């Protein structure tokens, strides 16, 4: 009757004493999807992952893998596999033994195991490293072994718990691309836990943003980034222009929002809202800074002064203080000569009504 989901939560909760780590979460992860659970530490993302893997038992609700309720299935009989944050490679085994561990427990014939292991090493580009021990590998190589060790079992879903957290930035970026490639190659569902919004944005098909045990927003990366639903999501996704505001006027197409400093801002209603907005956000890339006296022809245009300039290489982050006291941040292309400004200079700030994103409570 319904579509098959790789993983499904039906009103799942996990309490540790009084702490509600996960609170009545409903979730469906499609087959073959790269799905990210994003949130600050303590938001319940790792607990959710561990409940899928069977390392935690839900206090309430049901967890499904492949449409089968797995509440009473121990981790070693679940069709899921975890790549742990600290990788948990068996230090007393070689790379090949690590990868073969699960297959041996399945009593697979020896030659078949050997073939599978070398196939996997090929997939993660570690051929020839069979005999090494984990402590003889670099961080990135250990990463690949951990992924291979899980993937070789061909699980329904691969669970990754911040596996890149310990790597330096450059290696992290390489591994992100690598993981995405592997996921496309094998077509297995990946559920990826991270607190790094850029990582989630760059890799995922869909992202669930969690806070205090609840999913606050779920959607594709563009939507999460461009249309954060709440102030928390907006902040967490790194939006710089977030304002509390109340509704001043309302018609079928537009809201006029008034900030606490008295600024009137026009916002377009893109979709139906389930409650009244309590604020709005504007991405810094959407904010135009215009030099000169002529008012820009966008719905929202206000005069202000340059408060600070931060040079970031390709762009300059310009902070502009409006007359009422509200501060906006705009990203200005460093290359364009027409926008060279100095601190204290009078400029226009402008953006279109479509770029005013309404925030709910």
């Amino acid at each position, binding site marked *: 009757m319904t579509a098959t989901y790789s993983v499904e939560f039906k009103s799942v909760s996990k309490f540790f004493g009084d702490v509600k780590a996960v609170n009545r979460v409903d979730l469906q992860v499609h087959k073959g999807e790269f799905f990210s659970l994003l949130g600050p530490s303590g938001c319940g993302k790792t607990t959710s992952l561990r409940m899928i893997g069977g390392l935690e038992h839900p206090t309430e609700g049901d967890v499904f893998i492949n449409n089968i309720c797995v509440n009473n299935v121990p981790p070693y009989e679940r069709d899921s596999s975890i790549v742990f944050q*600290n990788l948990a490679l068996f230090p007393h085994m070689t790379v090949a033994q690590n990868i073969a561990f699960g297959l041996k427990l399945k009593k697979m014939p020896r030659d078949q195991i050997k073939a599978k292991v070398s196939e996997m090493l090929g997939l993660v580009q570690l051929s020839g490293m069979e005999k090494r021990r984990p402590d003889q590998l670099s961080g990135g190589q250990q990463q690949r072994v951990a992924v291979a*060790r899980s993937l070789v079992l061909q699980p329904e879903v691969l669970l990754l718990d911040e596996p890149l957290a310990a790597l330096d930035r450059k290696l992290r970026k390489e591994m992100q691309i690598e993981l995405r490639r592997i996921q496309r190659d094998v077509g297995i569902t990946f559920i990826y836990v991270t607190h790094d919004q850029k990582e989630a944005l760059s890799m995922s098909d869909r992202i669930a943003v969690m806070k205090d045990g609840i999913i606050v927003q779920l959607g594709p990366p563009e939507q999460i980034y461009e249309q954060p639903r709440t102030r928390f999501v907006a902040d967490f996704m790194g939006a710089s222009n977030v304002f509390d505001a109340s509704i001043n006027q309302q018609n079928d197409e537009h809201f006029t929002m008034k900030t606490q400093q008295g600024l009137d801002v026009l916002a377009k209603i893109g979709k139906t809202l389930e409650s009244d907005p309590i604020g709005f956000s504007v991405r810094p890339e959407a904010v135009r800074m215009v030099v000169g006296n002529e008012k820009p022809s966008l719905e929202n245009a206000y005069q202000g002064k340059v408060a600070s300039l931060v040079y970031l290489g390709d762009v300059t982050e310009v902070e502009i203080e409006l007359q009422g006291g509200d501060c906006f941040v705009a990203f200005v292309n460093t290359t364009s000569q027409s926008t060279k400004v100095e601190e204290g200079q009078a400029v226009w700030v402008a953006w279109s009504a479509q770029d005013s994103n309404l925030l709910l409570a």
Partner: protein
Amino acid sequence: MKFRSWTPKLLLIFGLLMYVFVYMPMVTLVIYSFNGPEDEERRVRFPWIYTTGEWHDFSLKWYKELFDDRDMKKAFQNSFTVALWSVTLSVLLGTMTAYTLYRRKFWGKGLFEQVLYIPLFMPGTIVGVSTLMFFRFIGLPRGFWTILLAHVAFSIPLVTLVILARMQRINWTLEEAAMDLGANQFTALRKVIFPLLRPGIFAAGLLAFPWSFNDFVITFFLHGPKYNTLPIMIYSMAGRSGAVSPVINSLGTLILVGSLMLIGLSFLLQGQRDQGKGKP
């Protein structure tokens, strides 16, 4: 400062004297175990002392006498059997205890930990008489079983502590990883945790063995008329008078050397660089 300049030297001299203090009895014992017998005349005059501190000549006489002694052989066998069983059982139970203490919460855990460590510094005499009364109460006659049970009970805390120390150095995500990859909890223990814990388990066994083999005070209250261990044998040979037969020197030397080897090995294993840390 003038004061400072001689403090370290004074401390150094004191420190060296302490090492002499600690090792002198053992070294003397070993040296004199090779001492030859003295002349007959003196032996007749002071029958309760077989040797003096004087050196006569190098001789293996006391070792020969030792190896010819049947009672001694029997006592050695008994000590060895008790120690072997006590180590086996206490290592098994101690490992289970350490695992549970480290990995699980349970009702009464705090109390359990407190009771667990009491035997480690309770006076042996109190331990001896209280277990003696217990065995009498339940009607178990003194002998092999009373000694073994008491030794197991008082080795468990020791073994548990040593293994707990090792467990702190293990990355326990490995257990979860093994279970996630298809191992049930027994397989995970056997294939992943046990190999990493092995040095700790061996170290614990190597400590518990000489402890049990050498224990005198507790065993003293629990041994039966027909079941002697080696320390009891030594004590009864020399008696309460302190007259020391040179055979004891040679026996003592062998015991010291054997114990030192096991202990040294145990500490080597404990200090061994661990592989359990996950990431290098």
